[in-house]
Each structure stands twice: as structure tokens, then as C-alpha cells.
């Protein structure tokens, strides 16, 4: 094959090659972003990521289950007695103060998925019982009997009106 001479100025040659490689590499990396982003939830799912809930229909002592991001969310309208009882203790297996788990004491909002293996617990008397393996939660959603290890998860939510919450946005 043909011979080629080595340039004296290898420094400049290397520099050009380095710059081009960096610019090209940056472009290739940037080009991958739309592909990766396309795999993230699309716009209509993000819209469902926030669910507005009107609380005025839930009587004192009553519970409502709504869907949020495909999961059940328990909304419990607690009576003053229930609130007092919950404030008196720190829970069971995962101690936590009741005031850390609610924004307004009469409204408990928790994700209705047992922290053991994911079944949906049932409301029975005070708190919830999970019929899959027997875990029990109190009226603050805290686990008081296993095998579940953690308290029911509190989703991000905020009050957008006196009687309306938006689940999905803290």
C-alpha cells in the first residue's frame, strides 16, 4: 500500500482529532436522550399522576378509596376520639408520630398497599387488616402487627381548597 509521511506537527493533528471526538461524542450522548425520554411515562399518564379528590362527600368516621397512579389510596375522615387515640401512641413496629403522617389531623391519606407483599388491606374496626398474611395497621396507617415491616406509605399530597386535596403534588 501507499506510504504516508508522518507530519512534523503531530500536536496539532492530535488536538483536532481530540476536539472532533469530544464534539462528536457529546452529540451522540445528547442524541440518546430523546430515545431514553420516550420510554418515560407519556403525557396522558403524567396527567393521571395527579388526582384531585373532593373530601366533602366523606362523613366523619368514614373511609373512601380512590385510585392514584394505579394504586388504591385510603382517605380516612377521623373522629376526634380516633385522633386522640392516635396521638397517644407512636405506633408499633415502625415508631412514628401521628402528626408527622397527616397535614390536617382529621384527614388520613395513605397508600392502601401492604408493605409486606403488596396486598390491599381491609378496613376492619379500628385500622386495617391485611388478609394475605395477617398484618395489622392502626388508624394512622402504622403497622402494629407483622409480618409487614413498615407503616403504610403516605403519598405526596396537598390541600388545594378547604375540602379538596391533590394527590401527587406535595
Amino acid at each position, binding site marked *: 500500500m501507499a506510504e504516508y509521511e508522518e507530519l512534523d506537527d503531530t500536536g496539532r493533528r492530535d488536538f483536532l482529532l481530540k476536539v*472532533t471526538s469530544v464534539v*462528536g461524542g457529546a452529540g451522540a450522548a445528547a442524541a440518546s436522550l430523546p430515545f431514553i425520554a420516550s420510554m418515560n411515562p407519556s*403525557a396522558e399518564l403524567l396527567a*393521571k399522576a395527579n388526582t384531585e379528590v373532593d373530601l366533602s362527600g366523606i362523613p366523619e368516621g368514614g373511609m373512601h378509596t380512590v385510585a392514584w397512579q394505579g394504586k388504591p389510596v385510603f382517605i380516612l375522615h377521623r373522629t376526634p376520639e380516633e385522633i386522640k387515640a392516635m396521638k397517644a401512641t407512636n405506633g408499633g413496629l415502625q415508631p412514628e408520630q401521628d402528626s408527622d403522617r397527616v397535614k390536617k389531623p382529621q384527614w388520613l391519606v395513605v397508600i392502601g398497599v401492604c408493605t409486606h407483599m403488596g396486598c390491599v388491606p381491609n378496613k376492619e374496626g379500628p385500622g386495617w387488616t391485611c388478609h394475605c398474611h395477617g398484618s395489622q395497621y392502626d388508624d394512622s396507617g402504622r403497622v402494629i402487627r407483622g409480618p409487614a415491616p413498615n407503616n403504610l406509605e403516605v403519598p405526596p399530597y396537598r390541600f388545594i381548597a378547604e375540602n379538596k386535596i391533590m394527590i401527587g403534588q406535595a
Partner: protein
Amino acid sequence: MNKFIAACTLCCTIVLPASAAETKLENFQADTSVVAVERGVDTFMNACHGCHSLKYVHYRDLASLGIDKDRITVWRGDSTLDSAMTSLLSDEAAIQSFGKVPPDLSMMVRAREGGNSYIYSYLTGYYLTPDGKTSNHFFPLTKMPDALEISSATDPVKRSELQEKAHDIVSFLSWASDPHEAERKALGYYVIGYLIILTVLLYNVKLQVWSRLKV
């Protein structure tokens, strides 16, 4: 000789299609800014939404564009923010009144030759026939009534008002058919700019590599 033939061949590809297109359509530039689209939605809801749906456009898309949520609440009435902009006119009622179901408008500006210009010309192309009926210059067989009532507008002020309305409607429909147009073009400038820089660099690398070759 070869270059001449090649040049002729190239010219033919440009000249032929250009002469094939003849149009009496008004040249129309859509204004897809938020303000214009908002006006367009408002006009659309009053003049068109009674019969026409936009099944692929959701009220939340208007919110993403930047239109005030309160205005959207007025427009959507009982429908949720998540729902599509469907008309309340049922298919049966439509066929009874007009003979056919009014077509969905989500993609209408793209679905017609002439695009925006055609839809605008069509909307403003209604006129009164000698026997008092309305017809349309651009689609004589249309079953759609003169929604803007432009055929009976002889006053130039009134006419230009209605043309403004049509302009807003088409701007909205243009946005509706391609909501990402603005984003696409903006990104395009960056991508092409980057590629030009990269190609210049690659050209210089190529020159440098090839300069090593002994003649």
C-alpha cells in the same frame, strides 16, 4: 457534456412539480402563538364545537400550551381536564340534520391539499347563490352550513372581522394538528447548528488525514 446532462436532469425535477401546482387559495400564515391559539379556541368553541370534535386534542393540552386554566374550565364545562374536546352533537342527530357526521378536525389542516390555506379559504369561501342558498367556492358539495355567516356579510368591516375569526380558528387548528411544531423548529436550529460545527471539524480531520498521502 456529462455535467450539462446532469444539470438538465436536476432542473426538470424542480420545474415540473412547480408548474403542476396551480392554486387560487389565499396564502395563509398560521399564528401559533399562545395568544392567537387562545383566541382561536374561544372562536372555535362558539362557532364550531357545537358540531365538530377534536378527539385527539385534550383540554390538558391547552393547559400545557400555557392557556389559563380558568378559561379552560369555562370551555370544558362538565368534561374533565383529561378528556378530549369532543362535541356534544350525537352521530344520529348529525345525520338527521346534515346528512353526514361532521368530520373530526384534529388533523383537518393536514388532511387536505393546501393545508391551512385551503381551510381558511374554505371558511371564508361561502357565497350566496342567485336563488338565495349558500354555496362554497372551494367545496361546492359541502353539507356544512356557513358557520361564520360570511356569505351574507357585505359590509367590509364586518367581512374583515369574520376573516379575523377564520384566521384565529385556522391558527388554532394548525396548532391542534401539530402541537409540537414550535418545539420541533426550536430544537431543529440547535441540531443543525451543532451538525454544521461537527461537519466542519470532520472535514478538517479528513483533509488532514489525506494530506499525509504521498502524491
